[in-house]
């Protein structure tokens, strides 16, 4: 069975060849490759860490921004509330003042009207007195003629006054 009988020559060459290949690869090729791989690994790790850090910073920044925004919102709301209160107060005051003014005007108008009325009444009284006096004067003038005439006359005068009125 030649198939399963190792030949000394091939064993010799195989040992030699494999040994040389092993030494060349282990001494020359593998250190270069291993070092390059390690360097790249480190670089990738670094890059990943940097990315992580940047991400964290970004998140921090975002959080800060949000906080600032929140604060700004609150501030705005406060200002708005205050402004609304002020406006309401001003309106209230204005209304109150307006009412007061109206009342005052109405009061004074009423007073004026009262005064006018009183003045008019006085004038009417005076007029009535004058008319009465005139009537009396006319009556007295006609007394002498007759009773009947007198009465007619009074009648006409009253009518006249009524018409004049």
């Amino acid at each position, binding site marked *: 069975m030649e198939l399963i*009988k190792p030949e000394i020559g091939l*064993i010799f060459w*195989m040992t030699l060849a494999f040994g040389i290949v092993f030494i060349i690869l282990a001494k020359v090729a593998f250190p270069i*490759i291993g070092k*390059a791989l390690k360097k790249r690994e480190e670089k990738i790790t670094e890059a990943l860490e940097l990315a992580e850090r940047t991400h964290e910073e970004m998140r921090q920044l975002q959080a800060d921004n949000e906080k600032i925004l929140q604060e700004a919102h609150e501030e705005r709301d406060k200002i708005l509330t205050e402004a609304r209160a002020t406006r309401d107060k001003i309106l209230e005051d204005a209304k109150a003042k307006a009412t007061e003014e109206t009342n005052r005007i109405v009061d004074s108008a009423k007073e004026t009207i009262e005064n006018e009325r009183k003045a008019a009444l006085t004038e009417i009284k005076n007029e009535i007195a004058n008319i009465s006096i005139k009537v009396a004067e006319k009556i007295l003038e006609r007394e002498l003629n007759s009773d009947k005439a007198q009465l007619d006359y009074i009648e006409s005068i009253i009518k006249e006054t009524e018409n004049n009125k």
Partner: protein
Amino acid sequence: MKNRHIIISISFLMCFFFGINTYSYANGAADGSEKTETEESFNAGEMIFEHILDSYQWHILTWKGKHVAVNLPIIIYNEGHLYAFSSKHFQHSDTYSVTENGSGNEVVFSIPKEGKYKGKVVIIKGDEQVRPIDISITKNVLGLLISCTLLVTLFLIVANAYKKRGEKAPKGLQSLFEMLFVYVRDDIARKSIDEKHADRYTPYLITVFFFIFINNLLGLIPFFPFGANITGNIAVTAVLAAFTFVITNVFGSKEYFKDVFNTPGVPIFLKLPIPLMPIIEFVGCLTKPLVLAIRLFANITAGHIVVLGFISMIFILGQMGAAWGAGASVLSLIFIIFVDVLELLVAYIQAYVFTLLSALYFGLACKEHHHG
């Protein structure tokens, strides 16, 4: 998709080549050496073994009855003398004589066609055939040297790429090698061996992985200067296994040797009058690398035999008639393509298994804390 195309086309080419080779060989044998015209039929077993086994010639093809082959140098060491001559001297005659410089003795070399040393160089002394120390550059040795050169060249190219590209992402060949390199380092070595010791074994494991993988792949290419059955040769796998065995034991920790020769937790009567357990454990140490060698050898050889068997079928059936041959060739081709694709998978798996098991043995041998 692209890779699949390449694999299929390689398989096609492979079948094509084997076809030509064996066909002409059948003819060549008939009108060449035999001359009797009785051995017209195609001998599948001979053809397969011609491919699987080593030889002093690298037969490339036979064209119109003429062999095209590379005659490789024969190097013989015998009784303090080193002889080196080309194997072409055996092409036309059965013996080759060399006169020694000092004593003037004539040494007669021959390659017997029959007997115990069939196909091997022997020295004829009277009636006896003596097998000297034969370190010829045979087909397998040349194939081995070619694949080793290729492996070293590829690794130097890759290392150069790392130097040049610095920390940039890998590209082309570099990324293929990096993938396998990192895989062996991280998933085989570092997972099987204690973290402290893993890096000590990694160079060997990576070398073994790439060595087996590249030789397996080159063994599938049917063209000269590839296609030598290197990892399917027991001597090659035995040397690889011996390396693993030596490294396992040289770097073995005290606990490991204690486990072997004085296994804890085993009753004393299994150790003392007859050292039963130590013998079993010691045999276990030897069988591990032996199994490594045989597994790789058997898997690769079996793959080659199956492919060659299907090819032989074309010619065996072809002798029954042209129609039979045509039918068989279509059927065989389908099977050959299937087996070749399977062999690509086996090429990787066997490299992986050898490396992984080596790593596991290293891991067992260098662990320091005994559990249990």
